[in-house]
Each structure stands twice: as C-alpha cells, then as structure tokens.
C-alpha cells in the first residue's frame, strides 16, 4: 500500500526544547492511524506541523507523493488536509451551510452582485449532513447546536473540501455516548471511501477498536508504529509511560504532618464537577491527575474563588469560607499558579520586579496614599528571585516575556512567595519548560512542603506526580475517580483509573 502522507524524520524545537524529534510516520489511504502518547509527548506539535500551524526545523513530508511543507493552515487546507481541533473552528454566528461553504460559496450573478446560490448550498449541505448522519436544517446557526453536532459539521466541511486526510484531535471529549458512536461509524465509512484518518485520543479502547495502525509518541520521539492487532491496552500504557528515570526528581526531604489546611467537602457544579471531597494537609504534596478535560483546572478555579459552584464547602484551617473571590483566597494565604502563564499569569511586557511584586503590592505601601516603599519592594523581589535562582538580567529593566519558560514560571511562583501563602494550588507548573528547569521547580515544591506549606499539584504528566507527591487523586469526567497513596503508586493503575478502565480498585 502506498502512503498518502509520509513523514520523514521531522524535528521541531521550541526555545531550545525539542517537542518533536526525528519522527517518521506513514499514513496510507483507507487507513485510520491512532496516535497516542502522554500530554507533552509531542502529539499536538506533530499535528500542528502537518496542519501548517508551525513549520519543521528539519525533516520532510510527502503528501500524495509530492513534497509538502505548508506555511500556514490555509495551505494545508487547500492541499486537502482537514484538521478537526479539540476546540472547533466554526463561526458561531453563521449557519451550518455557511460554515461549510464560507471560503467558496457557489454563486450566481445578479447584475453587479454575486449572490450565494442558497438553493444549491442548501442542497449540497443537506447531502453532506446526510453523509455524516445529521438530520439538521442547513440554516440552523452553530450556536444553537450541540458540541457533538458541531463536531460532525466540521467533518461535513472536510468532506465538502474533499480532504484526503482528516486529522481528529480528541474529538470525543465533549460528546455523549450516542454522539461518539455516530462519529465512529462515520469515520469507518470515510475509511471505506478511501480517506486516510489520524485519530488522536486518550481513550485507548476507542483507539484500539478504530485504528488499523497505532503510533505511540513519548518525549517527542516515535516509540513505535505497528498494526493495531499488535497491541492491547496494557501494552499501550506501558509504551506511553516508558521507563522511569529516578534522577529526574529531587528526593523529598520531609513527611507531611497531620494538620489539615484545606478541606473540600462535597463540591459540585452542574455539568462541571461532581461531589469533590478531599483534604490537603500541612507539608503535603497532593497530586491531582487527570486527562485533558477531566475538570482539573475547573476545580482549581473554584477552589481559588474564580468560578462559582452550587453545592459543598471549602474549609481553610478549620474556617469555612463564606465569600469566594481571588482576593479573599489571597487573604487566606492561598496561592494559585495558573496553567497558562501567558493568558493568566504574567504581565509579559512589564519588568520582572513589578511582576514579582504584584500580589504583595499592598504590603509595600506606606501611608494612606499607598505610596510604595520601592527600596523594600525591590529587595523583597530580589531576594525572592534569588531564593528561586532566577536567571535574568536586571529585574527592574527586563520584561517578563524575554525570559525562558522555566524562569517565567519562577517569576510567577516568586510573586506568590511574597504573599507568604500556606496553600499552593499549582496547575501544570512544569508545562512547556525544559527538563533542567523542571527539576528546579520540583525542588521548589519540595522546599515549600518542607517548610510547612501544602501543595495541590495538578498535572497531566503522571510521571512527575509519582515522582513528587505524597498522595495522588485521579480525576475523570469531573469526579474524583481514585486515590493512591505513595506506597501504592503504580503508573499503569493510575492511568487506568484516569481512563476509567474496568477492574481498577481505587484505594
């Protein structure tokens, strides 16, 4: 069989950190390739390379036998590659039909005007919707249809442009069981028509059931690509996890105490989280593991008072919180390191010192006019930067954006340190930073715990949680689905709980 897409030893590096390294992959017509790997294994980067979102540093791609190097998404689209992202790329204010035909409407002339041939568009759309098994009016606007239906509209669009390769990235996250089945049926149908599909998912059983060939990525490298028949779920997980390397994590220096600092009791919010219950103790590093879309971040935002919930309570050092806002949380000595530094963490264009001082600003004020004691502020910022071994130039001059990912994260942590918190909520604190910097972040986490702080360490990288935590909670579809003590850390069992595999006995 000839490959429709042939990726040859492709490499992509971000800020010196290789995200995809010498990966070769072949996808044949009429074939579904399942692509799996842990978060950060390089799946998204690989797909972004194919989809023209980013460009390779080295290596080559052949598409339908011709060299293929898209410079932007539009080029990939025109070449016949449809990319269905986790977040959909639809215009919510337009109809289904318009979304499908937006770049090239069939039109007829009326004097100087080119009018959309609505009858034609409607007819073609109906036919396309029928192909994906949707019985909706083509004139319905996107904001009135469900996430599952939107997903199928994207596929209809891929059919319309006659894409020969369709990439689906975690398409089932927000779908109901029925919608998921429908999607799979359509994928098989497309396969039978000779289309090639790449299917990325964390739901391993789905991948196993759908794919002809399965490729596994780990740390940016291709571990293996073999026919699906060569795998079962255990083998897939084992290959995704790989060998653990002990020296990646610093030794934990102190054991947690018994004093509870944060108690969460029966927290629920409709459609988001359900009956969340746990206790975080002084000196404890509590891991919260979950796949993308399991509700980790949503829970963290509720704990910090950013989002509301309907039931349950949050108790800090024995006192039940009655008001929920970031300012109240900060007053109660809670710190929140958010998952995306760019959107919710740093003031990118502002200098490092001001970034570090932001949370604790009122502490440095004198008099009622709130004039800053700049000397005290600077020395506090400097010492925090020093404690965390921040590598930078003059912190009063250099803007935060010019720092590397690891150092940016240190700035965010330093900002919270100045407010002297006792509870840290850290959401993906090591995302997008290199191995060396990760080690430093881990050391900081250990030091904080040793000094009596409690840390809720949220991550989708299981390895770092088993390396650092005293205990791990597993979240899945908005629920705590399992709990594992350090003595009981077994990567495969934890992953099984996250994937909701049968036969897991949460501790």
């Amino acid at each position, binding site marked *: 069989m000839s490959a429709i897409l042939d990726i040859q030893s492709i490499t992509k590096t971000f800020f010196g950190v290789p995200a995809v390294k010498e990966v070769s992959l072949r996808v044949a017509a009429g074939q579904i390739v399942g692509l799996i790997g842990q978060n950060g294994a390089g799946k998204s980067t690989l797909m972004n390379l194919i989809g023209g979102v980013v460009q390779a540093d080295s290596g080559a791609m052949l598409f339908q036998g011709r060299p293929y190097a898209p410079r932007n998404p539009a080029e990939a689209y025109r070449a016949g590659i449809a990319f269905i992202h986790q977040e959909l790329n639809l215009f919510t204010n337009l109809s289904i039909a*318009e979304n499908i035909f937006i770049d090239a409407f069939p039109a007829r002339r009326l004097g100087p005007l080119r009018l959309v041939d609505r009858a034609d568009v409607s007819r073609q759309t109906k036919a396309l919707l029928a192909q994906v098994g949707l019985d909706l009016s083509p004139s319905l606007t996107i904001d009135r249809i469900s996430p599952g239906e939107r997903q199928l509209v994207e596929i209809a669009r891929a059919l319309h442009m006659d894409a020969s390769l369709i990439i689906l990235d975690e398409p089932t996250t927000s779908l109901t069981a029925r919608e998921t089945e429908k999607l799979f049926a359509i994928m098989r149908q497309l396969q039978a028509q000779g289309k090639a599909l790449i299917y990325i998912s964390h739901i391993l059983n789905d991948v196993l059931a759908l794919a002809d060939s399965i490729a596994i990525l780990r740390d940016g490298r291709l571990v293996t690509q073999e026919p699906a028949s060569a795998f079962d779920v255990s083998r897939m997980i084992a290959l995704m996890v790989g060998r653990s390397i002990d020296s990646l994590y610093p030794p934990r220096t102190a054991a947690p105490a018994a004093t509870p600092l944060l108690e969460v009791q029966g927290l629920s919010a409709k459609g988001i989280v359900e009956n969340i219950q746990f206790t975080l103790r002084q000196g404890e590093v509590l891991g919260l593991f979950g796949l993308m879309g399991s509700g980790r971040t949503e829970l963290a935002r509720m704990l910090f008072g950013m989002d509301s919930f309907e039931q349950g309570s949050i108790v800090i050092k024995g006192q039940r919180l009655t008001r929920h806002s970031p300012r109240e949380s900060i007053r109660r000595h809670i710190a929140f390191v958010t998952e995306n530094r760019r959107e919710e963490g740093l003031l990118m264009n502002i200098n490092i010192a001001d970034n570090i001082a932001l949370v604790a600003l009122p502490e440095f004020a004198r008099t009622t006019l709130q004039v800053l004691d700049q000397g005290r502020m600077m020395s506090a910022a400097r010492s925090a930067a020093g404690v965390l071994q921040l590598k930078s130039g003059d912190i009063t001059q250099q803007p935060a954006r010019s720092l590397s990912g690891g150092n940016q994260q240190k700035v965010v942590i330093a900002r919270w340190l100045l407010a002297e918190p006792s509870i840290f909520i850290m959401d993906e604190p090591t995302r997008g930073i290199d191995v060396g910097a990760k080690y430093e972040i881990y050391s900081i986490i250990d030091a904080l715990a040793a000094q009596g702080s409690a840390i809720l360490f949220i991550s989708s990288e299981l390895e770092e949680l088993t390396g650092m935590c005293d205990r791990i909670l597993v979240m899945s579809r908005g629920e705590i689905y399992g709990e594992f003590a350090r003595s009981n850390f077994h990567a495969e069992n934890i992953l099984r709980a996250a994937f909701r595999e049968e036969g897991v006995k949460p501790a």
Partner: protein
Amino acid sequence: MNARRWNPLQFVLNNSTLILFALVFIGFSLSSPRFFTVENVINFVKQASFTGIIAVGMTFVLLTAGIDLSVGSNMYLSAVVSGLLMRTMGLEVLPALLVALATGTLFGAINAFFIVNLRIIPFMVTLSTLVIGRGIGTALTESQQIDLPQRMATFGQGQLAGIPMPILLFALVVLVAYFILTRTPFGRQVYAVGNDVEAAKKAGINTDRVIFMVYLVSGFCAALAGFVLASQVIRVDRSFAEGREFDAIAASVLGGTSLFGGVGNVYGAMVGAVLIQMVQTGLQFNQVNLYLQPMVRAFIIFITVFFDSLRETTQARLKRRFIRPVENREASTPART
C-alpha cells in the same frame, strides 16, 4: 431541554429595541395627536434617511469589529467636492452624485489602506481622517458656505410613486445592503471575520480584502448620505454633518450591532436610525427645549446598551463549557470506598 422554553425576560432582552420603538411611538402619539399622522411619519423617516444610510455603512464596519469615525467628515468632503463642481462647472445632479460617490469611496479606500496595509488601529486612523477630511473640505471652500443650485433642491424634493427621494434612496441602500450581507459570499465572510479573524484565515478567507471592502462600503454610504442631506438643506457649510458619526454608531448599536464584531444587521440599523429621528421629532412636537433633545437621545442609547450587556451576561451563563455531559450519559458511577 429547558433552554427552548419561552422566557419573558429573555424575550424583552432580545427585542429591546423594537419594544422601545413601540413604546416611544405610542407615547408620542398619545401626548401629541398630530404626531400620529401619515404625513408626520413620512416626514421623520425622510429626516432619518441620511443617518440611516451612514448607519448601514457603519454596520458593515462594526460587524468586522472595526470603527469608522470619519463618516461625518466624509459626508462633508464629498458634498463639498460635488457642490463645487455643480456651482463652478454647472454639473448636472446625476454626474455630481457620481463625483460625490467616487470621492467618498476614495476616502474610504484611504482609511482602509492605513488600517489594512499599515496595520494602524481603525480608531486612530478614522479619528485622524475625521479632522483631515474636514480640514481639506474647509480649505477647498475657503471656509465659505456653498449654496447649491435649484436643481439640487428639485432632486431632494423629488418623488417616485409618491415616495420622497431621500426615503427611496434610504430604502434602496437598506435593501442592497441587506442582500449583500445576507446573500453574497462577501457578506457572509464579513460575519465570519467579525466572529473570529484567526478562524477566518484558517478557513481560507482573504480577511484583508474583506476588511478593506467594509471601509469602502462605509465611505460609499457616507458620500451618498452627504448628497441626500445636501439635497435637503441646499447648502454646504462648515458644520455640515459634523458629529454624525456618533449618530451612525448609535443607530447601528441601537439596532443590535455589537462593537465587538460578528453581530448585527442592517434592518436593525434602519430601525435605530428611525428611532433616533422619531425621538427628535416627538420632542419637537411636544415643544421640548432644543438643547434637551440630545440628552434624551443619550438616555435612550444608554438604555439600549444597558439591555444589551444584560443580555450578554445572561447568555454567557448559558454558554459555559460543560465537561460532563449534562444528559446522563451512562450508569457507571465511580467506585469509591
């Protein structure tokens, strides 16, 4: 699903402008019997024509999340150019109209060039061209008032099948714009660009071209509106159409257009423009002090944007992203001790 149930609050929020329109109309009709006459209604629709025409152009721009503050100056400049040619060269009405339209469209093209090609934000570009345009116009006339020839008055008072010329042009613009926005590929792409520029680029739309075009449309509409206004007042002086950009924005926003792009239609802009003029006329009928009228107008705009933001917040709550299917997906509950 309960989202489909009829909700009176939601209904009021979704139709706030029409309800306001009806209330104002009924209120004025009750307070002044002469208000509710065909003659008077035709009169204020006629007076709303030129505001309505620029509001239509403004709607195109706002749909892409842009803004065009220069339409008042554009009206003035294109009226000056065509007026001067009419006076000095004895140009007939129709060629003069063409000259005005060409001037206004060129004005729009200059805005578009700075916005699209030099990537300066629309607010700064059109604020600058607002001042530049009026400056050039005034320099051209040497600050003198231009009195337009009689044929312009004849044109302005002309009728076709009993419909006054300004209303006719207004209706034509609304109709054509409606067709462009709802029926042409370009129109639909305007909505797509306003909804999400990045997604529009990914979908293969030439977003630069779309944005360039909306400023041309706005310039064209401004010139036409300037011509209509000139044909009614028969002269062009230094304060001609000054500040009209804000009426256009207000009319468009009253009609449900969002300043953040992607939401709005010309039909709403038309209702908004007529509403603004109706309020003005109604206040005149009730002999309300001339200077109080803009205050009432400001109040009405405030009410509308207030309801608009209320609607946004209630809808934002409905749009919250669910990670758990709300409909019970399967029976499996987590095993827990």
